[in-house]
């Protein structure tokens, strides 16, 4: 639905609602949580493979991990979960976890160190997309059994070199750190797949909920895990219904047929805010909207030109118009709320300053191409850039295309400029530092398509590469924070990336819904603390 239709619909609904009161609304049962969300991104529910938002939401509520992020206290960082404590060896390469006793899976099987070792080994051996999170510690399918071991009630993890303990534990809070029931999973193994096919659509966890059904593009239903050993959640049943259209979500919420609507557009957010009985809660998410200037371009690679472009973004204008309420200005590669994230915002639209910098670089009559994937916000950002660049005599040609067309060219380092969105993979600063600010080999032969810095053709300085490597091994938390602050400052000043905005998620919910968290930037939605 285009912007005009969206506005028209919202205006019509708003007008009609204001003229007549809604019919008496129904309430969902007190022990049931009903959510409208877009869940068509769920590919699999296997935690060793799941890497999408809606799938990770399911995983967070169905599986426990060795350590977890408390949805009611996310700022505190990781806390003990299935592991009640841990010790780090003197050389810093081995962590020994002591498993909590008396916890059971939904099958009734006890949670053992053996299950934890199996789960992590399995994620490495299956080698699915998110396996790189564990692969960072030197784990490979060949050495997984050697590096991850269970011994009675203890689980030991030995890494290839010393890493910051916070880095390892932060990674273990991600979806891939979920502990599965070895007995149940292996009973459903087919052709040596370690239960991958079965776990795509079934669960074997020890979390507050168990999965009742997942109907693609329709609904996810969860109910209480009868063998959950923690405090019994108030919501005994959770239904997440796939509702694509914002206006439909709004009607369902206003009628009281759902408790939470997670995908309302700015017009509908404004509409429900005006209506009674509904509240809106904002949470900063991890997604960053950025521009990347190709480091292989003879003009765009000049330091003055990179800086000039940072003054040619109308941050405030976009934030207050088409991005209203959905994004906030943010100019650093670590999302706000991440460990060590900088909130400095030194750039604003300054045409004169940009002209000076471009004159210093000797730029005249520049014409470049921007690649944009077919998403409304990105196209509008490119159009805004087209406008401001025209004011300094730069012609921007916008090429809009599918992921295959645009992302393919970005990965092949063919685009002059790319308008992108990046979401962190796990709640540790290394997740973004390691891709935005790290590129040890910028040659074409390196083909390091996983690194944004390589895709952008940025020859990262040896000093910054070393700083990123050092920060990930630094044991002292405060020192580590300072190291990331320094890296971000240098990044802002020298990089060809223009980080512009950080995503805000606005959840509209009935006023009686309490303690709902989408997990902010660091994790996913949690249903067990919710009360009504």
């Amino acid at each position, binding site marked *: 639905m285009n912007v005009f239709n969206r506005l028209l619909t919202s205006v019509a609904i708003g007008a009609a609602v204001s003229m007549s009161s809604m019919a008496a609304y129904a309430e969902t049962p007190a022990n049931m949580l009903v959510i409208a969300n877009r869940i068509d991104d769920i590919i699999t529910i296997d935690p060793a493979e799941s890497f999408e938002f809606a799938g990770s939401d399911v995983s967070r509520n169905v599986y426990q991990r060795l350590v977890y992020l408390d949805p009611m206290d996310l700022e505190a960082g990781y806390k003990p979960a299935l592991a009640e404590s841990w010790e780090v060896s003197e050389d810093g390469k081995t962590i020994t976890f002591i498993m909590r006793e008396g916890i059971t899976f939904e099958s009734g099987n006890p949670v053992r160190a053996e299950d934890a070792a199996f789960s992590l080994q399995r994620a490495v051996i299956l080698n699915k997309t998110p396996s790189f999170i564990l692969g960072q510690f030197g784990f490979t399918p060949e050495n997984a059994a050697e590096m991850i071991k269970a011994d009675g009630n203890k689980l030991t993890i030995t890494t290839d070199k010393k890493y910051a303990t916070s880095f390892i534990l932060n990674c273990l809070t991600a979806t891939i750190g979920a502990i599965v029931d070895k007995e149940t999973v292996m009973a459903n193994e087919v052709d040596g797949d370690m239960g991958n096919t079965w776990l795509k659509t079934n669960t074997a966890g020890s979390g507050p909920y168990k999965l009742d059904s997942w109907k693609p593009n329709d609904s996810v239903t969860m109910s209480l895990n009868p063998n959950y050993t923690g405090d019994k959640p108030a919501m005994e049943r959770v239904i997440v219904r796939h509702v694509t259209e914002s206006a439909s979500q709004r009607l369902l919420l206003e009628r009281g*047929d759902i408790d939470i609507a997670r995908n309302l557009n700015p017009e509908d957010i404004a509409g429900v805010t005006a209506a009674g009985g509904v509240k809106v809660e904002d949470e900063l998410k991890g997604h960053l909207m950025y521009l990347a200037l190709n480091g292989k371009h003879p003009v765009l690679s000049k330091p003055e030109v990179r800086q000039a472009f940072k003054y040619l973004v109308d941050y405030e204008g976009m934030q207050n118009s088409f991005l209203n309420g959905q994004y906030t200005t943010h100019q650093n590669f670590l999302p706000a709320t991440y460990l060590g994230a900088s909130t400095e915002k030194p750039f604003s639209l300054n045409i004169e300053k940009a002209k000076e910098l471009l004159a210093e670089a000797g730029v005249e009559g520049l014409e470049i191409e921007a690649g944009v994937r077919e998403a409304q916000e990105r196209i509008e950002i490119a159009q805004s850039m087209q406008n401001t660049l025209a004011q300094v005599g730069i012609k921007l040609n916008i090429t809009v295309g599918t992921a295959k067309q645009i992302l393919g060219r970005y990965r092949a380092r063919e685009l002059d400029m790319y308008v992108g969105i990046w979401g962190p993979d796990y709640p540790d600063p290394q997740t973004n530092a390691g891709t935005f600010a790290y590129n040890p080999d910028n040659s074409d032969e390196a083909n390091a398509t996983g690194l944004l810095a390589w895709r952008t053709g940025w020859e990262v300085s040896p000093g910054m590469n070393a700083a990123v490597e050092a920060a990930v091994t630094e044991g002292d938390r405060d020192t580590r924070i300072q190291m990331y602050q320094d890296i971000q400052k240098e990044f802002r000043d020298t990089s060809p990336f223009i980080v512009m905005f950080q995503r805000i998620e606005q959840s509209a919910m009935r006023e009686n819904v309490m303690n709902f968290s989408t997990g902010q930037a660091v994790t996913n939605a949690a249903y067990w603390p919710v009360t009504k």
Partner: protein
Amino acid sequence: MALTNESNEERPMRALFIDRIWPTLKVVISTIGSIAVTMLGLLFITFIIGRVMPIDPVLAIVGERASQAQYDEVYQQLGLDRPVIVQFLFYIWDVLHLDFGISVLNARPVSEDIARVFPATLELATIGIIIGIVTGVPLGVLAAVNKGTWIDQIARLVALIGYSMPIFWLGLIGLLVFYGILGWVGGPGRVGIFYVDVVPSVTGLILVDALLDGNWDVFKSAFSHIVLPASLLGYYSLAYISRMTRSFMLEQLSAEYVTTARVKGMSEWNVVWKHAFKNIRVQLITVIALSYAGLLEGSVLTEIIFSWPGIGSYITTALLSADMNAVLGGTVVVGLIFILLNVLSDMLYKIFDPRAK
């Protein structure tokens, strides 16, 4: 004598075969042949479209963070490294075994997904077309009989609105008024949230399953959810059916045999329904079949607005997510429906129009 007797018995059998069975068999063989050739063409075209579209199923699976090695591994797993013709032959072989492959996005067999989403569309489309026929045909006849009068004007206006109003707009306003404000009907979804998975799925048609289970609460909930989207689709069918009915009837009513019937003193009812209407049945069958096929193909916008998990939104989501197995499977099913409805229309022609035999 024995030989003669045998010959006498064989002759009527041969005559029966030549006169009766063979023509029917010929029709059956030619129909099956025609379906097979059309299906092969459909498979070929959808397969080629799937290959030339600028979407990458591998990227859809591995995500943009994947390394080149992970990308290459999945590329090979999907068989995309084989020559296109080989891929096509494998695809035909699989389809012949009713295997549309695994959805690359949700890891389930596409045939299972289609078996889940198609009944939702079938239920919606069938009620929609019934509403369209029951209201559209009489409206068209009434407009033709009263050509130029206010009745005709109203009928044409109703059809015009149906043609020109964007369906998402009408759907949302309908939802707002009848669900949001009046509370007469259920909201988006096939059934109320409390009745999800309450009755066992036997046919996949919730109304039928609820009846089979004897669960009236679920039936009422499902009915209250289907009535609005089905009426919406019915209205769009009505617009098309009534306009075409009016046009066909006007042609018949101006024919000489109608004037003759009237001159002979036949009642207007008999003239309209027993003579004129009887002669438009064949044309009307085509119109209704096309309309029904269109609804069965899935009305994407209606399904999106009403969160109706039907085949239209299934194919669209698959297309946007680069799930080519699902797109091809869905397209083949939709194509098959068109072909079968065409065959059905042809058979009905022969019943209603002796000249077509």
